[in-house]
C-alpha cells in the first residue's frame, strides 16, 4: 500500500518563530498551506505552571560536543516562542551592516526589513515593559547598574495583560505572552492553513533539482512512537525546524549544510539578599544592562546582562557545589536574585548527522569568548555587591560564594574552560543553513532559497549568517516574513 499523501501549494516545516509567520504570510497570500510540527499542540488551558510536566511537554534539550554546552529549544506548536521569555529587540543595524559586509547580503538593510519588523511588532504585541512588570529581581539588577553608573533599560516584551506569574518558560498560563501559538499560527489557520502536529519531517523530496514536497513520519500523540509515513506534496517547501533540525533535514535530503553555527553563550550569577526577592515571580526576564553590549550603538566587549527567573531547577543547576553547600544556597531561594550573561560569541560550530540520522552539534566557545564570560561574571558579582547582596555565587563549579569586593578582588585570575562553568547553555541559536552572497560559502541565497534546489527555502534562525547580539525572535520573524514574500513572488515568477 502506498503512503498517504497530502497536496498543497506550500508546506512549511516547523511552527516556531521562523515557520509560523511564513505559513501565515503564505496562507494570507492565497496559497494552500500545510504547516508541519513534530511536537504536540498544547493550548493555554494546558499550561498549569508545573515545571516537570511543562518542560517535558514543551521543550527539548541537547548537548554540544566539544564543550558540553546545553542547548534548549521549544518542541511544540509555536516552537521556542512558547517557552521563551518574551523579550523583543529590533534587528540591530550594526549586525545587518556586518551581514552585508561579510556575507554579501547587500539587500538586507534596515529599510528592507522595516515593514516586516513593524508587522511583527504589531502582531505579537511587543511593547515597552512598564513599572508594573518590573519585579524585585529586575530592580535589583537595575539598582546595581545605577550604583555603578552602567547603562541599562527595561526591555520590550510581547505580552498583552501580563500578570507577573513568572511562568513565561512554561507556556504562560495566563495567555498574556503572544507566542506564535496565539498569533501567527491562528492567523495562518484563519487564512486556511492546515496545521499538522505530531508530524516530523524526515527529508525533502527532491526530483530533478526541484523540491516536490516533504516525507513525513506521523507520531502517535499518546506514545510519541512512529505511527506511519505521510508525504506532503507541494512545489514550495519552507524549512523552519530550528537549528537543532533544519540543517539535519537538509543533510538528510542530500544537501550540504551545517557549517557556521553560532550561539549566544549563557551563564548566570546568583545573589542572596537579606530581604526576600521572590525572584520566581514576575516576568522571567525584563531588565538588561546594555553597558557592555556591542550592538545598538554600543561598543562594549559584547555581552548583555539580563535578569532571569530563579525557578528552582535551573537555579540549582546554575549554582556551584553539591550536597550541604547546594542545600544552603537553595534554602534561601526566596531571597535569591539571578542574572544571565548573554554573550555575543565569536565561536563557530557545526551540525552533522549522527549514524541514526539525528543532528549532532559540535560547538565550543573560543578562549576569547570564555575570557569575556569571565569578565561578565566578575562584573555581575560587583553589580550585585553594589546592590547590597550578602552573597554572590559565580557559575564556577568548584567555587565558594563571594561576600565582599575584597573577596572578589582576591580571586586569582585564570583562564576558564567551558567545563569550569556550572551551567553553560544557549537558547539563542543561529546558522547552519545561512544565507549569503557567495554561492561557495552559503547554503541559501539572500532570498532564503536553497542553492541548487528550486522551490526550497529556509526561513528560521538557521538561515541567519550569525548571532544578533540581542534576543533574536523579532529578527527571525521579520526575516521569515521577508523570505515568505520572496519565496512566493520568486516561485510565481518561475511558474510564469
Amino acid at each position, binding site marked *: 500500500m502506498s503512503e498517504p499523501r497530502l497536496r498543497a501549494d506550500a508546506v512549511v516545516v516547523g511552527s516556531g518563530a521562523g515557520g509560523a509567520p511564513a505559513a501565515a504570510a503564505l496562507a494570507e497570500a492565497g496559497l494552500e498551506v500545510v504547516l508541519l510540527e513534530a511536537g504536540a499542540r498544547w493550548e493555554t488551558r494546558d499550561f498549569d*505552571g508545573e515545571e516537570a510536566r511543562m518542560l517535558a511537554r514543551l521543550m527539548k534539550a541537547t548537548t554540544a560536543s566539544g564543550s558540553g554546552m546545553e542547548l534548549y529549544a521549544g518542541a511544540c506548536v509555536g516552537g521556542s516562542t512558547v517557552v521563551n521569555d518574551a523579550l523583543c529587540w529590533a534587528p540591530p543595524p550594526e549586525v545587518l551592516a556586518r551581514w552585508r559586509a561579510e556575507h554579501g547580503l547587500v539587500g538586507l538593510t534596515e529599510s528592507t526589513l522595516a515593514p516586516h519588523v513593524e508587522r511583527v511588532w504589531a502582531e505579537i504585541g511587543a511593547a515597552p515593559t512598564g513599572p508594573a512588570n518590573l519585579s524585585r529581581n529586575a530592580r535589583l539588577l537595575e539598582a546595581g547598574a545605577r550604583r555603578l553608573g552602567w547603562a541599562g533599560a527595561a526591555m520590550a516584551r510581547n505580552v498583552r495583560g501580563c500578570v507577573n506569574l513568572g511562568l513565561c518558560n512554561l507556556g504562560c498560563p495566563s495567555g498574556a505572552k503572544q507566542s506564535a501559538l496565539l498569533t501567527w499560527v491562528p492567523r495562518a489557520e484563519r487564512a486556511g492553513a492546515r496545521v499538522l502536529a505530531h508530524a516530523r519531517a524526515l527529508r525533502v523530496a527532491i526530483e530533478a533539482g526541484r523540491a516536490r514536497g516533504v516525507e513525513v513520519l506521523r507520531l502517535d500523540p499518546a506514545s510519541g512512537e512512529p505511527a506511519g509515513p505521510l508525504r506532503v506534496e507541494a512545489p514550495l517547501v519552507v524549512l523552519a525546524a530550528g537549528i537543532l533540525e533544519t540543517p539535519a533535514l537538509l543533510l538528510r535530503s542530500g544537501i550540504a549544510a551545517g557549517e557556521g553555527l553560532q550561539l549566544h553563550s549563557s551563564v548566570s550569577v546568583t545573589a542572596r539578599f537579606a530581604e526576600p526577592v521572590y525572584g520566581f515571580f514576575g516576568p522571567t526576564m525584563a531588565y538588561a544592562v546594555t553597558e557592555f553590549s556591542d550592538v545598538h550603538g554600543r561598543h562594549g566587549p559584547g555581552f548583555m546582562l539580563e535578569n532571569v527567573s530563579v525557578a528552582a531547577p535551573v*537555579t540549582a543547576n546554575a549554582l556551584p557545589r553539591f*550536597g550541604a553547600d547546594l542545600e544552603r544556597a537553595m534554602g534561601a531561594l526566596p531571597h535569591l536574585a539571578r542574572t544571565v550573561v548573554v554573550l555575543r560569541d565569536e565561536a563557530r560550530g557545526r551540525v552533522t548527522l549522527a549514524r541514526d540520522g539525528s543532528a549532532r552539534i559540535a560547538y565550543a566557545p573560543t578562549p576569547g569568548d570564555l575570557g569575556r564570560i569571565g569578565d561578565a561574571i566578575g562584573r555581575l558579582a560587583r553589580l550585585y555587591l553594589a546592590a547590597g547582596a550578602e552573597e554572590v555565587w559565580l557559575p564556577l563549579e568548584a567555587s565558594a560564594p563571594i561576600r565582599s569586593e575584597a573577596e572578589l578582588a582576591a580571586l586569582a585570575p585564570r583562564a576558564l574552560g567551558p567545563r569550569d562553568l556550572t551551567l553553560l547553555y544557549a537558547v539563542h541559536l543561529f546558522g547552519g543553513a545561512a544565507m549569503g552572497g557567495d554561492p561557495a560559502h552559503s547554503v541559501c541565497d539572500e532570498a532564503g532559497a536553497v542553492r541548487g534546489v528550486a522551490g526550497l527555502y529556509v526561513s528560521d534562525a538557521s538561515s541567519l549568517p550569525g548571532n544578533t547580539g540581542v534576543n533574536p525572535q523579532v529578527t527571525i520573524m521579520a526575516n521569515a516574513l521577508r523570505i515568505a514574500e520572496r519565496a512566493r513572488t520568486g516561485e510565481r515568477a518561475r511558474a510564469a
Partner: protein
Amino acid sequence: MSRPSIGVNGIGHRCEPREAPGVNAAGPTREVEAALARLDRRGFLRLAGTATAAGLLPAGCGAAPAALAPPPGLRLAVLSPRAYATFQAFALRLVGPACSALVTSRAIDPAAAADAWVARLPGLASALGQGLAVLEWAVWPLLPKLAPFTALDARAQDRVLEDLLRSRMAIKRDLYRGLKSLATLTVYAQPAVRSRLGHPGPFSAEGIAAAMRWGDGP
C-alpha cells in the same frame, strides 16, 4: 552528555530480564568498555584503558542496595533497575540532606522522573544509560575502595562527585554536568521540594505581590 547513536535501551540492562536485543551479554567489563567506546571521547578511552589495565573493572553484577531499588510496581521506560538506583544515589548526594529525606521517604522519586523525562528523548536516554553505567562501575577505580558507586558510603560517594567535578578530563566533567542537570530538574521541579524551599506555588497572589513591590528600593 553528547548524543550517541545507539538505540534507546543503551546499556545498564545486562542483568535485567527486560534485556534489549543486541546488548552484549559478556559481563559488566564488556558492558563498561562498550559504554566507554560509545561515549567515544579520548578522555574516556584513557579512563577505560587505566581501569582495564589495573584490572579494576567488575566481574560480577550483584543487585544495587534495596533502599535504592525502584519501588515494586514502578514500570521503568528506559532505565534499568541498576541505572535507576545509580541515578537515585547520585541525586541523593547532590541535593543535600533535607531534599534527600524527601527521596528516602519516597515523597519524591527523582530517578522515576528522570526515566520519564528521557523516555521521549532517545538520544539522551541512551547517553544517560551509558553515563550511569560509567558512574556505577568505572569511576570507582579512582577511589581506594573497590565497589560500585551505589555500594559506597556517603563520604566516598561525595569523593567521587568531587573528583568528577574537578577532574581535568572533559568527559568526567561532562558526566557530572549531565547528571547534575537531570538531578536538579527531577528534584527541584517537584512541588514538595518547592514548598520546602519557601516557594508558595506557581499561582500565589501574595508571593506575586511581594515580588512586584519595590518602594524606594534597596
